[in-house]
């Protein structure tokens, strides 16, 4: 069972709430009660895994999680209010690869259950009101196009209006190719929108999760006043395959992991998912 299947499981469960209950449990559904850790191969009950914030109970491997699961983990119950969800992607370039971009968008929505590769809003972290954004890797690899850029820029602007700190949780393969140079420009747009926070002495915490690459790592994600990462997340500018092809040598085993970045002075701290909410709250409190 792969990580993908776990998300399927959740979606199906949601769908089933609307449908009349089924009498028989299929073999597939039975197998979905279990998950195998991709790192240590231990088989774990999905309920147990979820209760452990999708961290392997044996080896502490951090599973990739959806944006909405992340919100559930980080934001106090009943305090979340999504903003700018009505900003939707459009096919500005009439981009067609093996299929037209609008079809890819429809597929991404279905697959992820999200409207774009980031969800933004206002919510409380241990009682502290925060402008919060979390990327959705299930939506075209968490790629940043016009909508991601606009939602982040507006989140920063809302934070300034309401005098709130900003927390962005990143996971992304990089820029959205389907929007061409417009995507590249989102790097400049997000970076300068977040710059305005400094003038207002508003804290911006960037949390890097597995994986964070390319146009996202080379823009807002690396510009946090404080940058933290989940353990063993892969974070970098260029993908490891591209680097191996360029330099024609094997890369070290820990290359581009959170711990590697910490060792090389690029991030402030590595924080386990189980400590993440507490750490965010503490930092926000200290900067009030």
């Amino acid at each position, binding site marked *: 069972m792969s990580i993908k299947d776990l998300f399927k499981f959740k979606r199906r469960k949601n769908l089933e709430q609307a449908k009349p209950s089924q009498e028989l449990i299929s073999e597939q559904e039975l197998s979905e009660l279990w998950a195998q850790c991709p790192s240590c191969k231990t088989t774990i009950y999905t309920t147990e895994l979820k209760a452990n914030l999708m961290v392997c109970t044996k080896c502490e491997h951090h599973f990739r999680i959806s944006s909405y699961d992340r919100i559930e983990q980080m934001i106090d119950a009943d305090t979340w209010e999504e903003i700018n969800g009505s900003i939707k992607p459009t096919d500005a370039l009439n981009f067609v690869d093996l299929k037209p971009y609008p079809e890819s968008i429809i597929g991404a929505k279905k697959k992820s259950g999200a409207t774009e590769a980031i969800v933004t809003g206002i919510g409380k972290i241990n009682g502290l009101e925060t402008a919060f954004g979390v990327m959705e890797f299930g939506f075209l690899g968490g790629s940043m196009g016009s909508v991601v850029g*606009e939602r982040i*820029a507006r989140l920063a602007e809302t934070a300034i209006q309401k005098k709130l700190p900003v927390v962005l949780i990143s996971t992304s393969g990089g820029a959205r190719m389907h929007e061409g140079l417009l995507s590249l420009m989102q*790097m400049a747009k997000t970076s300068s929108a977040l710059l305005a926070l400094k003038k207002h002495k508003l804290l911006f915490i960037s949390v890097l999760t597995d994986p964070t690459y390319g146009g996202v*790592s080379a823009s807002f994600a690396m510009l946090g006043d404080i940058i933290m990462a989940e353990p063993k997340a892969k974070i970098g500018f260029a993908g490891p395959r591209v680097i191996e092809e360029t330099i024609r040598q094997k890369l070290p085993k820990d290359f581009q992991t959170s711990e590697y970045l910490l060792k090389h002075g690029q991030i402030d701290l590595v924080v386990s998912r189980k400590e993440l909410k507490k750490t965010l709250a503490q930092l926000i409190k200290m900067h009030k």
Partner: protein
Amino acid sequence: MNKNTFVLDFEKPLFALLNEINKLEEATDKQKCADLIEGLKKQFYDLRERIYSNLTAHQRLQIARHPERPYTLDFIKGLGENWIELHGNRTGADDEAIVGGLLELEPNLTVVIVGTEKGHNIKEKQRRNFGMPQPSGYQKALRLFKHAETFEMPIITLIDTPGAYPGLEAEANGQSWAIAKNIQEMANLTVPVIAVITGEGGSGGALALGVANKVLMFENSVYSVISPEGCAAILWRTRDKAASAANALKITAKELLEIGLIDEIIPESAGGAHADYLQTTANLKTALQKHLGILKTKSKEELRAERILKFRNYGIFTQ
């Protein structure tokens, strides 16, 4: 007519004609062939005009990557006087994929120029890392931007890079952060900034020098979020579809002007920038003078705020 040593596929008929003309001109009975030579020359110019006015995105990509295309140091020779190159990031390295320094664009107008440099021969290319900067190169650029700000000099960046270097050391030394930092700091500068895509505008590695009040592109340059080969490999699952990707990505100056992501196209000489350095440099200088003239009337705060707003407004979506 410039006799290039490197010939692109679609230029082949042109060079066949050129060869013929040269042969005839070297012949002993040159006088007798005068009419024939004239006729062939006219054919050559007509054909060149025809080829160069109907280029595909993929052909422009090849011109943008032409090994004889003028690079930053070539432009500087014809752009002004008293070039003084300034080296180093001040913290341990001088990345020669990026050159920077001071130039008198006009007798009383000193500008800071920062540009990528690919190098023209193998030795130079290695020294310049094929124009692919390391983090230290972006740090050098940023240091020079700050210098310009301190002494209130306009900044001109000349961009021709496949992208930031994808290497082990580059990652270890914070390539992502170096690019992100430059993008953010450039947005915040209080002096006029003009960025010119002279050849390849390769993704984040280009944008790290590209957050400017005015963004100009040479007629046959390209500016892209990813190389067409890289895009094809991911979305088409084969690098062979680079030409399709080049079309889909809208990387040419004309297309980007239409979308509104650049401000002006600088014309190249007939046959591409590589055919005539002097003319191309003169065209660049004219464009720079025009835009600097407009920007110098603006206050520091206007320059900063307008630049931030310009990039703030980029994006197409529905609501």
